[in-house]
């Protein structure tokens, strides 16, 4: 019996999901940052700023940013770790990684390493990094538990995991507005600005299929992290899960 997973609201063969997600990001890469600003009214910058503030990253640290795409977090981490530290910006999608490289070069950021990789098979040794982050990428990963286990493996003891992702709000009025906005407005804006309605339909659907705060927290603890707490942002529309690898 063929193994299936979800791609938005559709069920697809597990092996097919990765190429479908690739198709989405090949399509949106060049307009990704603009669409983030438009769709979130700029709020994504605050969510990411909060993530950086919560990271406890310091000078000399080694940071791995997964599904780092256009380099928002990597740029901020590079400033924190300084010349004695190291930041690896990684993404499974070559088009997004190229946008990230362009962005960082245009902003004068040097010293960041660019690696194309899958979060499910991270090509770094055990206990390599002080911090591993993934922002708005985990919901696109086929095997999320495997990705979290890999992030655990490559973190040093005392290393910090950061998962920034869309989540579930329990404020009824906000949920109503958010559903209307996600399914009626976002795909239309995707069509007007990025000429791609389908990808933003997928965005809205994939958010609904992503685990809620408590489920994701349990996944992080099951992967071996000794501590995990989540911070609800914007009423729970976005959540930051912070895990610590404790020996």
């Amino acid at each position, binding site marked *: 019996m063929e193994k299936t997973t979800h791609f938005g609201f559709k069920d697809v063969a597990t092996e097919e999901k990765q190429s479908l997600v690739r198709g989405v990001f090949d399509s949106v890469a060049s307009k990704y940052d603009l669409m983030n600003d438009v769709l979130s009214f700029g709020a994504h910058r605050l969510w990411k700023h909060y993530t950086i503030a919560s990271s*406890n990253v310091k000078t000399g640290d080694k940071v791995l940013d997964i599904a780092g795409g256009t380099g928002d977090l990597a740029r901020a981490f590079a400033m924190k770790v300084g010349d004695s530290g190291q930041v690896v910006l990684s993404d499974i999608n070559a088009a997004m990684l190229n946008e990230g490289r362009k962005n960082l070069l245009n902003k004068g950021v040097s010293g960041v390493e660019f690696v194309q990789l899958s979060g499910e098979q991270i090509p770094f040794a055990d206990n390599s990094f002080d911090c591993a982050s993934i922002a708005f990428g985990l919901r696109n990963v086929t095997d999320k538990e495997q990705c979290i286990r890999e992030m655990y493996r490559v973190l040093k003891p*005392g290393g910090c995991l950061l998962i920034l992702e869309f989540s579930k709000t329990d404020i009824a009025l906000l949920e109503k507005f958010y559903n209307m906005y996600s399914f009626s407005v976002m795909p239309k804006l995707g069509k007007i600005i990025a000429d791609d309605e389908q990808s933003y339909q997928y965005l809205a659907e994939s958010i609904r299929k992503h685990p809620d705060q408590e489920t994701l927290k349990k996944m992080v*603890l099951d992967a071996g*992290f*000794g*501590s995990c*707490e989540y911070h609800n942002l914007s009423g729970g529309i976005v959540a930051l899960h912070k895990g*610590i690898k404790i020996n």
Partner: protein
Amino acid sequence: MMQKFQTVVLEKALNHLLDAQQIDIGALEGKILHFSLQDLPVEVNFICTNARIFVTSDGVEKVADVDIKLQFESFLALIRGEDLTDLLRQDKIMIHGDVKTAQLLVDLLQQVDFDFEEALSKWTGDIIAHEVGKVVKKFKDADNPLEAIKDEAVNLLIAPKRFH
């Protein structure tokens, strides 16, 4: 319970102080300390690892090495240099677990030379920092800081012009 963002602020402040004053927390490596104030809504875990301190308000799977409960007044006394054993004898602190780990934390906090005004001025400018510093000093030196805060609040309500 502390709000999550408050733990982020506390974590940043603590680690900034440790780095700025090059304080080595190696002796606390791997230790988890559960800390709560009985008269204020402060209940946190300090996770000391990888040469830094993480501050969380929940979600720790491992049992804490030590659980420390005290009043805010006793916490201030500790920071001012009072002996942990003396406070224990006077029942002003409750410790469950490894007392040595608690002592290590106290030693660390007593090492920190915290110029509150200097730290705050980076965010607010010198004048505001100085004014806030005066207020904080008044509370810290007071015999009963909570009563001092209440007194100031009452004074503000009665005679707000004093505070302009």
